[in-house]
């Protein structure tokens, strides 16, 4: 049988259509294509792909099930190691994880592992009627802080083992970055909502509007009878560049821009929460967050959207697929450029001019790549005298986030590293007894799958600690 050298394309909405709506861009494999794609897997004995997945999803076995047409069986295999396949299949950076190790990829394109995973999860969600069984309770109580992928996973695993779990979430909706950060067109909110519903069916209490460190402290949770606490509070604190003009009107952190659009639904025609729509937009940064902000701005009606990134295409940290989609949609990539100042309107004759203080442009400087540093990344160096101005009226800073210090500041004895990340051992245990942590709160901004993996690990460790 001749092997198909290329991954089967996933149908997508046409770029010129999707650039104006918030519906999902990639539509997923239909059954026939999934079957064809599954045939490309060689079922390698040494299973290199499995080692490339941060949680070691049993890839060849699930793909064999797909080949056999046993999609539910495939789901059950993935589910042994991953709680959020519908999410990870969509958002994992497969090209640097599972698919980077795929044998097929040596000569041809790797197997579309992520696409198959998404197919299987979507099939299960659409067809499985099985209601989750309420597990036998074991009488132990555990608190989970934060409802991102790490918290949801830890809660789910513990609930299935019989623990009574309460998840405390600061915002009014559960899901963490999956609801306030990653936009609808990449990850439909209904998928996240379904995961949350499943947890509720398992008996997990989801307490929104509770800020741990403010409404309740970690110590108070123990006093209230929780025997262990998992902290999955993420890395939500946005960084700014500290260049002149960052306080002008029209400068957003990506978190603010995306929160206004996603969580507060400013993308709808009649929102309660305002957002600057239209005009010319510059997004600073090159990660997934920058791509999401740029493509959201476009969908909100921007005339022109730039990505301004100080290194080159090779270093761009975003998922390949998102970069390709962004380019197809007409996002203008200004690589090897770095902002030095944001310019604002100022009418010297009229201090009350309503236009005063709004962004009018961004001064940038061109960069070149120097010698590779210790990590092998080539350092960008400004080219003297190469400054120029981009005419924009919105600037979105997507240059990274750090863990929020709220919990650290209110929990005595909880140690963090120089970047604010909570320090944990190999089981996710922090410097405080029975306090575990994982996900971005530990690592700084990372990935959904690693956060999920950390939640799983901690659930296992908590179970061992409490039942000994």
């Amino acid at each position, binding site marked *: 049988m001749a092997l198909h050298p290329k991954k089967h394309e996933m149908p997508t909405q046409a770029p010129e259509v999707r650039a104006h709506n918030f519906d999902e861009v990639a539509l997923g494999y239909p059954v026939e294509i999934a079957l064809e794609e599954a045939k490309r897997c060689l079922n390698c004995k040494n299973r290199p792909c499995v080692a490339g997945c941060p949680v070691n999803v049993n890839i060849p076995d699930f793909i064999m099930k797909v080949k056999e047409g046993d999609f539910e069986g495939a789901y059950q295999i993935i589910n042994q190691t991953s709680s959020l396949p519908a999410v990870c299949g969509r958002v994992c950076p497969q090209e640097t994880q599972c698919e980077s190790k795929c044998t097929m990829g040596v000569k041809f394109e790797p197997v579309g592992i992520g696409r198959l995973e998404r197919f299987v999860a979507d099939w299960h969600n659409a067809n499985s009627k099985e209601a989750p069984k309420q597990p036998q309770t074991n009488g132990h109580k555990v608190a989970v802080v934060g409802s991102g992928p790490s918290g949801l996973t830890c809660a789910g695993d513990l609930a299935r083992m019989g623990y009574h779990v309460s998840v405390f979430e600061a915002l*009014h909706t559960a899901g963490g970055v999956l609801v306030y950060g990653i936009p609808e067109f990449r990850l439909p909110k209904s998928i996240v909502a379904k995961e949350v519903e499943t947890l509720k069916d398992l008996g997990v209490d989801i307490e929104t*509007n509770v800020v741990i460190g403010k*409404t309740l402290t970690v110590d108070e949770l123990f006093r209230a009878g929780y025997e262990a606490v998992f902290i999955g509070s993420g890395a939500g*604190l946005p960084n700014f560049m500290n260049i002149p003009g960052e306080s002008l009107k029209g400068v957003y952190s990506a978190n603010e821009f995306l929160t*206004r659009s996603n969580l507060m639904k400013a993308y709808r025609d009649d929102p*309660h929460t305002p957002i600057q729509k239209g005009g010319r937009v510059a997004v600073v940064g090159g990660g997934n967050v920058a791509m999401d902000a740029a493509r959201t701005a476009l969908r909100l009606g921007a005339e022109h959207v730039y990505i301004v990134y100080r290194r080159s295409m090779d270093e761009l940290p975003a998922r390949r697929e998102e970069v390709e989609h962004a380019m197809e949609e007409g996002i203008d990539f200004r690589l090897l450029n770095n902002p030095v100042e944001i310019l604002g309107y100022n009418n010297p004759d009229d201090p009350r001019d309503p236009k005063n203080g709004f962004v009018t442009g961004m001064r940038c400087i061109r960069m070149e790549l120097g010698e590779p540093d210790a990590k092998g990344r080539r350092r960008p160096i400004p080219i003297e005298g190469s400054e120029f101005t981009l005419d924009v009226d919105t600037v979105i800073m997507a240059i990274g986030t750090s863990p929020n210090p709220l919990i650290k500041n209110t929990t005595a004895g909880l140690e963090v590293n120089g970047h604010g990340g909570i320090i944990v051992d190999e089981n996710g245990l922090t410097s405080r007894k029975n306090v575990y942590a994982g996900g971005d709160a530990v690592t700084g901004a990372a990935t959904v799958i690693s956060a999920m993996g950390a939640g799983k690990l901690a659930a296992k460790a908590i179970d061992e600690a409490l039942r000994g």
Partner: protein
Amino acid sequence: MYRIASKTCLNPTVTQMEIVAPLVANKALPGQFIILRVDEDGERIPLTVAGVDKARGTVKIIFQIVGATTELLNHKNEGEYIQDFVGPLGVATHTDGIKKVCIVGGGVGCAIAMPVAQEFHRLGAEVTSIIGFRSKDLLILEDEFRACSDKLIVMTDDGSYARHGNVTVPLKELLEAGETFDMIITIGPLIMMKFVTLTAKPYGVPVTVSMNPIMIDGTGMCGGCRLTLVRDGKRITKFACVDGPDFNGYEVDFDEAMSRGRMYFDYERHAHEQVCNLLKGAN
């Protein structure tokens, strides 16, 4: 969902409510705030905790009807519910070592200032309160302030009640007459806080201002509430929701804060009109 335990109109545009939120009531300290959403899909707005009743598990809020969300909130009645209510957020007002304090409140800022004045009174500090309003029918909380102040001065901009003029006038008189304070705490419109700070400056009295920038999450996640402090010539970015809302008045860049506060001006006016029309239709 959070039940409205009571509702009182303080004046035609200012309403007081008590909301059942035992966890918040248990924790809130003067100077802290909450964020609420009136209904599903509503906007998140910050309001100061104006008092708590731990026994009943209620939190008091006092709000001025200025736009769409406060209009919708005011439309709710006792016994009805609001969607979300989270807090207490922000850092409580520092009271340590302050024996003699002057509280300067303007308009609905008096509602934010009142629990702070009450706290100083409770701690045994000497409290001078200066509260100002545009006119007599906007006056609120006079009795409450009288009860917790050693000295109370009421001002109206138009002279329709008590003394004519704005709050900086009596403040300057007091300072000029040699009155000293360990701290002046001022809460109200930005322009008023700016001038209170400028008034106090020649006398070297420390000033705390309560900043009210536009907020969303209130947990330090969006950075929308950022403001700039100028300290030793260096500009420092702070997030009002987690680092504040109280700041050293001498460090705050008021002009920038005023400019940022007007970012959504047109949008807000439009949204307010829409809600007003909607509610008119409902009546």
